[in-house]
């Protein structure tokens, strides 16, 4: 699935990175712990989270995430979105779906759990 298809499918709103929505998403990782994101990261995965602080953005940059979906209708503050716009153009999306629904819907559409890169 591309990020654009995911956006339509989840009725998600694009917060930034509109130009990068053709990225193909094969793997995703859902979690609200930064250290776990850092520890379990594989490159080019979609990050699904309900955390909206700047740490999520920096973490997404560090692990080369394809994009970030904020669940439960959560959205980062404008200054947090600005960090992405300035630095990395990682697409950020927000959906009203809760974590479980979001993961289930994407899983049913063939998005797999990420396989950790060998560290």
């Amino acid at each position, binding site marked *: 699935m591309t990020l654009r298809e995911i956006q339509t499918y989840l009725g998600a709103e694009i917060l930034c990175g509109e130009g990068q929505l053709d990225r193909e998403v094969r793997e995703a990782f859902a979690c609200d712990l930064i*250290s776990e994101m*850092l520890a379990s990261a594989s490159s080019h995965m979609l990050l699904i989270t309900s*955390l909206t602080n*700047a*740490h999520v953005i*920096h973490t997404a940059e*560090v692990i080369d995430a394809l994009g970030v979906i904020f669940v439960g209708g959560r959205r980062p503050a404008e200054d947090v979105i600005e960090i992405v716009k300035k630095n990395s153009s990682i697409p950020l999306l927000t959906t009203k779906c809760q974590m479980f629904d979001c993961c289930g819907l994407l899983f049913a559409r063939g998005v797999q759990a990420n396989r950790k890169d060998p*560290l």
Partner: protein
Amino acid sequence: MVDTFQFTPKINLEFTIREKDFFLAGESASRVKKTLQQLGMEQEIIKRIAIIIYEAAMNVAIHASHGMLRVFISPEAITIETEDAGGGIPDVDLAMREGYSTATHEIREMGFGAGMGLPNIKQCADELKIDSKVGTGTLLQATVYFTNWQEKH
């Protein structure tokens, strides 16, 4: 940030971590990552280095009061060093255990405090040294070599 190019191709980066400056860790990890990408370094090594920087600098901001983050880049290896003037770690072996954390509720709400920082650093580094004195502070040095990773694993 101080970039010093010396006679040998060595680059040192230095960041000051101020008390409760929770965001310097992620910012510096992102910035060092970009610098290393410009140097044409391999992606997986860059990621390991960025993770070490993130976790180590975050530990200073969370658990110590203030300190320094230094990154020494040479053709053979990168060493990431944090030095702080915090309370120190009474039992380093215990602190190294996955899940052990003394982080507060406030820190956990930010998504940290899972007790995985030091284990993450250990996993990403080829060499890890922690020198801590209670009441004085902690010196952490993590080195990543550019060559022997494959041999080790």
